């Protein structure tokens, strides 16, 4: 019978076969030890984490004080989710104009109160999307370039994500705090909640109250203007401070343009709004850089310009000519003449 025969025909085991098996075991053990050693060295202190935590934001050794063009080059990149923040006050116009000169594209522009600067960025086609809560020319009327892009797709279609001020302010704060979302009492009876899918709700675990939620605002880059920086790149802003501190702390990279660079930030309230240099990527000295917005203590809001903008932005031709003359053919030094009150 064939099977019986087969057992007899099995050749004698060579002594090296057993040795191989023993070596294999040894080898495996050795490799395991080696791997343990390597992983211990490579991932020292790392623990498995069941919850999501915020990405680590590396402190910048010292904010680099750079010319505006270099600062914008480094901080604001194509495709960024970027906030040029400023709540009427301290709007970083010069930095926005530099981004236009450098032909930044595919930006997601974030701002509570997009005004003329975003009208300009949208009008030149730098933006794919705008996230906002009030988009107008305050006290004057519409943002015509924004409307043309959104309603007619010129010079390119613009996507929007719309919120209320309370939602945006809370979202920035959650972004700065490293939380995944913001919770607040809002949007009750308001239709935005039914057209913006990112607005959701949560039930309070203590009281059972339904509260609105929005995702935390997490930015690639934040650009703000401030009154002064010292030589280390610590920045101080005062007056209507808006959501600038939150925007900077919610961003991976931050650029601050300033009215002046001083040896020492000087006499200030113990609770002054100061951004330490290690929260900022780059500081650029651009006096007048907030015009036609203003810098408290330096120059006033140019309300006449906000009114003059209406006819300029109304037509594509007048807008394009204005951009050519006032942005493309000029540099940041053109803002200096506004620095005098």
């Amino acid at each position, binding site marked *: 019978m064939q099977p019986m025969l087969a057992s007899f025909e099995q050749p004698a085991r060579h002594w090296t076969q057993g040795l191989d098996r023993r070596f294999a075991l040894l080898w495996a053990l050795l490799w395991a030890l080696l791997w343990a050693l390597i992983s211990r060295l490579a991932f020292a202190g790392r623990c498995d984490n069941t919850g999501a935590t915020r990405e680590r934001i590396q402190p910048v050794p010292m904010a680099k004080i750079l010319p505006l063009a270099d600062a914008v080059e480094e901080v604001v990149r194509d495709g960024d989710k970027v906030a040029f923040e400023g709540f009427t006050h301290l709007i970083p116009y010069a930095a926005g104009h530099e981004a236009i000169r450098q032909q930044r594209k595919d930006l997601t522009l974030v701002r509570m109160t997009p005004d003329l600067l975003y009208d300009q960025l949208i009008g030149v086609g730098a933006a794919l999307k705008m996230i906002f809560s009030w988009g107008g020319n305050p006290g004057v009327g519409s943002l015509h370039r924004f409307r043309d892009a959104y309603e007619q797709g010129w010079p390119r279609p613009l996507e929007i994500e719309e919120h*209320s001020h*309370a939602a945006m302010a809370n979202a920035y704060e959650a972004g700065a705090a490293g939380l995944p979302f913001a919770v607040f009492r809002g949007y009750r009876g308001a239709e935005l909640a039914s057209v913006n899918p990112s607005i959701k709700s949560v039930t309070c675990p203590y009281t059972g109250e339904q509260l609105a939620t929005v995702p935390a605002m997490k930015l690639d880059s934040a650009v703000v203007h401030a009154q002064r920086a010292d030589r280390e790149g610590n920045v101080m802003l005062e007056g209507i401070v808006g959501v600038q501190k939150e925007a900077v702390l919610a961003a991976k990279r931050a650029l601050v343009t300033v009215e002046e660079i001083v040896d020492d930030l000087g006499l200030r309230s113990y609770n002054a709004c100061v951004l330490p240099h290690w929260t900022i990527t780059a500081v650029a000295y651009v006096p007048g850089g907030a015009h036609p917005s203003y810098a408290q203590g330096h120059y006033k809001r140019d309300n006449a310009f906000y009114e003059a903008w209406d006819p300029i932005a109304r037509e594509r031709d007048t807008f394009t000519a204005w951009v050519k003359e006032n942005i493309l053919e000029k540099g940041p030094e053109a803002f200096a003449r506004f620095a005098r009150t």
Partner: protein
Amino acid sequence: MAAPSTWTPTEMMTIVAARALKSSDVCFVGIGAPSAACNLARLTHAPGITLIYESGTIATKPNLLPLSIGDGELCETALTTVSVPEMFRYWLQGGRITVGFLGGAQIDRFANLNTTVVGPYNRPKVRLPGGGGAPEIATSCQEVFITMAQSKRSFVAKLDFITSLGHGEGKCSRERLGIATKGPTRLITDLSVLEPDAETREMTVVSIHPGVTRERIADATGWPVKFAAKVADTPPPTVEELTVLRDLHARTRAAIEGKA
């Protein structure tokens, strides 16, 4: 002084809106007509009023009307200025505001407001600036005053979009949403004053401005407007009210034109 004989409908509206405010009010001020009314109140019968603008300025006393809600004048004359997240979280959401003052592009009979779009949301005929602070002002302030010029274009039967809640669909709409604040208690226009009916909450004419007829009010309203059982005659502007208001506008104009 002789009683002034002429005034514009807008002046009448601003003056009536100002009269609605008390010295003890803590008022969240929207820009435009509300800002003029609130500052007129402060400069006339309500010197103690606390004016708050959403830019963060608390108890501000501007000498002229700001063009935006964040003009330097507001910060310089304020008791204190807080950050925007603090403004919305502690002061508005925290329930510290007695009166929220709003305006809008469209309003319906229940004083719901639209400042978002004319036409459908995704393909609007006109894209308006949006809600800003209004959605939460409308529900967090103890009560809301609205001031808007009255016309068929803006007083509509159905809003294109509900930016901020008034009395919803009437009756207990707010209560059903868990809202404890009163909502719009007064709508002041250039022709009349409307207040919510105690039961239906439909905005109903309670006072008619001098020289205005019921027909004119009906013609300027996009729904069959109701009149209260007892309708008052709005007292005409006083010399003081008109003078202070005109001075305020003159100072503002001069400042914008760079003469101040």
